[in-house]
């Protein structure tokens, strides 16, 4: 026992502070309840304060009173502060690149496409709102939808409305086909079979641009036909 006492009393750390742990615990529980209830109101600033502001307060309470950092030697606080500082330095250093998808001389096409794809997916997905319980099953059981698939894959370049104005298509040369342009369909060779071939094997297969990649691996023959029909629905005279 003397050995343990030595560890505890020998450095004067544990003397002189008597935290009422039970009180701290109940304050933590109270804050926890607020952090769950607050965001339920659905008001943005209330959510930010109750969720994240309270998290900081709770963390401080635990660090100071349970971990006893408040009574720890100053060098320890400096050590931890250095870690926290380095962390913020890392975040600040990469934040402009991660949080923005374009700047003065650059554009992150992949991230933009990802955002567009995700939003299109979410839009097609949240049509059955208010049924939280049922939603997970939807993902597994979801049948194939040509419109959804177009929104997730083709729209990235060809645009959600088929006008060839998709976000990732802006930088392509030649630009993606504009399905709403009558001139595009004026070529009689552009029939349904040809559209199917291009989606399956890529435009290069019919002498077009290699930028229109082959997507055959994603679809069954029947699904290819559905996507082709969807693409052809953008035809002005369709």
């Amino acid at each position, binding site marked *: 026992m003397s050995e343990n006492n030595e560890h505890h009393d020998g450095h004067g750390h544990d003397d002189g502070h008597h935290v009422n*742990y039970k009180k701290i615990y109940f304050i933590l529980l109270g804050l926890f309840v607020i952090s769950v209830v607050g*965001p339920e109101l659905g008001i943005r600033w209330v*959510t930010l304060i109750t*969720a994240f502001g309270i998290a900081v307060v709770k963390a401080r309470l635990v660090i100071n009173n349970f971990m006893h950092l408040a009574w*720890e030697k100053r060098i320890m606080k400096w050590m931890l502060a250095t870690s*926290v500082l380095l962390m913020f330095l890392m975040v600040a250093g990469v934040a402009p690149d*991660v949080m923005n998808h374009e700047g003065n001389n650059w554009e992150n096409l992949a991230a933009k496409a990802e955002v567009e794809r995700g939003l299109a997916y979410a839009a097609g997905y949240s049509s059955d709102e208010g049924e939280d319980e049922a*939603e*997970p099953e939807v993902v597994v059981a979801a049948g194939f939808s040509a419109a959804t698939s177009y929104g997730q894959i083709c729209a990235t370049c060809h645009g959600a409305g088929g006008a060839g104005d998709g976000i990732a298509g802006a930088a392509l040369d030649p630009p993606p086909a504009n399905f709403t342009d009558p001139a595009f369909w004026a070529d009689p060779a552009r029939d349904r079979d040809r559209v199917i071939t291009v989606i399956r094997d890529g435009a290069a297969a019919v002498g077009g641009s290699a930028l229109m990649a082959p997507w055959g691996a994603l679809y069954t023959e029947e699904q290819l036909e559905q996507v082709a029909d969807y693409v052809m629905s953008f035809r002005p005279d369709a």
Partner: protein
Amino acid sequence: MAHARPIATTRSATGIPTPRLAVWWILASEVVIFGGLLGAYIMHRIGHPEWAEAASHTQTWIGAVNTFVLLTSSFTAVLAHQAAEKGNGKEAAKLLGFTIIGALTFLMIKSYEWTTEIIAGYTITANTFWSFYYTAAGLHALHVIAGAIIMGFIAVDAYRGRELHRVEIIGIYWHFVDVVWIFLFPLLYIAK
């Protein structure tokens, strides 16, 4: 002292007992590990509005119950430290036992939660939000598992009245695991 100890475990240039200095060093490195991960998550979350849809599928009440469990286990851990300070090893061991039960409860709830999500198709490869979700919560869960195992050894020693100072050391680590969850909870469950 009945037997000689390595000098490094008893001397202290900082005035802080070596074991405590060591655990704080570990936590300083953990700050960078978890901080980097959560910082990356926050930046991506802001840059990717489409994540909101994915995030809306996390199960808030499960996260809330687990927050309560961890807060409570932190409370029993600090009470164990208090008991150890008074030299009451048996009481400290009992309270560490409660903390371990808290850790196991946390892990069981987590297993249930992940099982339902994986069955529903929300796997680690579903999209980047879920990748972050499983990585952050998974790394945290590994810390819970490690803490529970170490606590088991310390509780056995404490029960026999040995190495009581270690109760405080594992406590500091455990509270840190709690603090990480305090931030994970709003980030993954509340911000929808």
